[in-house]
């Protein structure tokens, strides 16, 4: 309740903030699997943006040793990080601390960002006992919203994967499924989507959050599931 109160108060403060002056951190994680309770983070990639500007040097990329040793064959197929590679990776605790200080006070942006956030929140809570509760923006939600508004063609509706969305917007999608590359691609998607929003005179953070904050939107679970049917 207190948390909710704090957040809603903050929200008032930032809702008038201009998007172009806002600090964003675009995040992507690689996971051992999609089960929120059983699976773990094995890599975190993040890149900063100020408004529509992508700060190429302001990046974060760490692979971690997952607390669960159970690897799913299919996830290895996706991110190509093998268990033996991860053995050599450092522990997650200090890396989560680093990540928090990197992402601090930024609006977290991601493709199906709720999935990444739910893993991050849980890992952060259980490992370093910290409540990581950033505002977040889901690029997939903006994308779908723009389709509904008729700004993007309706046949884009079938696009859910990061790759397809990137391609539909003319963004080169290479090195997919590396957390940092995916974050970079997501950032470029976000950059273009913000231009569309600006053309619709959507310029404040409040308006953006109304469209793209997964906490507010109802169909996020569907979106998530669709997105991960790779």
């Amino acid at each position, binding site marked *: 309740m207190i948390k909710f109160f704090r957040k809603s108060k903050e929200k008032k403060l930032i809702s008038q903030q201009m998007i172009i002056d806002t600090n964003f951190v675009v995040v992507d994680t690689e996971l051992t699997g999609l089960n929120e309770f059983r699976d773990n983070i094995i890599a975190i990639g993040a890149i900063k943006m100020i408004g529509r500007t992508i700060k190429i040097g302001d990046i974060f990329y760490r692979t971690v040793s997952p607390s669960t040793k159970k690897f799913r064959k299919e996830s290895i197929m996706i991110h190509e990080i093998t268990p033996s590679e991860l053995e050599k990776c450092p522990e997650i605790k200090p890396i989560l601390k680093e990540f928090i200080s990197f992402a601090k006070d930024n609006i977290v942006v991601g493709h199906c960002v709720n999935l990444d956030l739910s893993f991050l929140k849980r890992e952060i809570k259980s490992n370093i006992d910290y409540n990581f509760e950033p505002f977040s923006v889901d690029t997939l939600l903006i994308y779908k919203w723009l389709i509904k508004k008729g700004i993007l063609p309706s046949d884009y509706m079938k696009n859910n994967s990061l790759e397809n969305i990137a391609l539909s917007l003319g963004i080169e999608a290479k090195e997919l499924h590396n957390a940092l*590359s995916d974050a970079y691609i997501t950032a470029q998607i976000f950059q273009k989507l913000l231009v569309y929003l600006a053309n619709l005179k959507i310029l404040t953070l409040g308006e953006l959050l109304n469209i793209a904050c997964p906490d507010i939107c109802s169909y996020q679970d569907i979106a998530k599931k669709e997105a991960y049917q790779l």
Partner: protein
Amino acid sequence: MVKIIEDVIDFLKSVPPFEFLSDEVINSVTVKTSLEYYPKGTYILLQDGAPSEFLYVIKKGGVKVFRRVENEDIVIDYRSEGDSFGFVSLMSGDKSRANVVAIDDTICYLIPKDIILGLINKYSEVRDFFLRSFMNIYLDKGYREEQYKRSITSTVDKILFTTPVEEIATKEVISVTENTSIKEAAKIMCENSISSLIIMDSNGIPVGIITDKDLRKKVVASARNVDEPVKNIMSYPIIKIDAKDFCFEAVVRMLKYNIHHLLVIKNGKIHGIITNHDIMMLQGLSPITIVRDLEIQQTIEGLINASKGVNIIVGNLISQGAKASNITRIITEINDRIVKKIIQFAEREFGQPPVPYCWLALGSEGRKEQTFKTDQDNALVYADPSPSEQEAVQKYFLEFTKYIKESLLKCGFPPCPGDIMASNPKWCQPLKTWKKYFSQWIYTPKGENINLSNIFFDFRGIYGDLSLEENLRDYLLNIVKDQKVFLGYLANLAVRNKPPLGFFKTFVVEKSGEHKDKLNLKIKGIAPIVDIIRLFSLEKSVRETSTLERIDSLRNKHTVVRDYADEIIYAFEFLMLLRMRHQYEQVLQGNVPDNFIDPESLSNLEKKLLKDTFQLISKLQDILIERYKLMII
């Protein structure tokens, strides 16, 4: 290494001036770089708007750079992937000088100002690159807007990088003490017709400067009392430059501090003042100013001085991307002017000639294809005198031509090693003798005669009674056109030098000697085209002498030219430009220009064009052999 950084590094590595930098340095640039997306139609920079805080390097898409002047858009440039923009206002920091609009969805890497300034200070390659690419935009600031486009598209000439400041600085420095009244200072400036005055403190140390601008802005416009001391209106600190520094260093400082005057220091002492105007004068030598300058000269010495800028002009034109034919046209215009002037001096010296005469330029000068100052190739034809005056006339013209030869030498045209000059009695003859020569060469085409006809048949009248030239040309074209044997000999000469291209498409270069592994552009490329076109012109009675003009005239007259005219023109322009650029480099290094090019020094595109050119020549030679097959010996 992180993949996305690596990608940016790879990209920057392929883009000048970053390509000159080490991976480490590029890496340090990359981590400060941002990526920005501009949808088509976005105005990225606005004319007279805020200065750019970044160097924009285009990753994808393209932009148009243009200025709006009196309701008219002047397109300055289109830039695309790998090009950059925003440099000039970034450097000067006052305002953006042009509009930059995305003409396509465009993605740019934005490199912050401080990073670029750091690179410029540290790496001369970076500095040179940006100076060359952008500096004229700054330098023409004082010029009228209409001239904007012309100078903005040109690049800074090498001269900025080779001329020490002291060479062009104003030596005389006039200074006053800081307590001198504004009125007094202005009076001193007027009396000495200078645009700036150095202000000294009581210890004789320069502390500031006042310029016309200060008087305008801080005195007249703000109605300041002219009895106030100059120190109240002076600009300070005064920026200095060493006398030995090259002029581009001066440009950098003017730009950095947004000023137009620098104090020149030599051995710790004040040596002079250099202004942006001095620098504009240095590089602003235009063909027009040279021609005008030549026109008013009354002495050989004056001509020598006035003609000094020719090489600079050629360099300017080359770096401005002028076509070779335009450059040679300008050079011809200037050189003709020098020759005419000298002949006029000779007339003044020896009195009016006893009979009408015409000065003839031969060889490349006759074809208007001269590049840098080359050997004298000339002759003189005079109206047939009566037998009684023959001897006196001959004597007059020999003295006359000797004077011209020596004067040309003084102006930088060395004598012809083969003595094909009007000063040689053999080549200073009345019309009837010339006709005899021509008919001899044509009717008995052997050995030396063929070579002579190749040189002399490109004759062009430069000065004097041009009807003599016309008369001689009528005669030549009339007797030559059906002389199949003679033309066969010329054809033979034109195919003698096979283009240096083997079946394996590799260059055949000089095998030994000083020019080992080099390619003789003149003999292997330019001469065959010139020879073939001359041959066709004689066949078809074309009066023009320049190769390109001959091609144009032959378009409707000669089937081979009709089919290949555009290709030949393109090839010829290309070869001439390659040679000119090569020779200009040599001139800059103080060497004697030659025709030997190192194929390895060419870019891939140039290599490809050169191969195409040689294939064309080879094709033309095959056609020639086919047409004249009975004649080829």
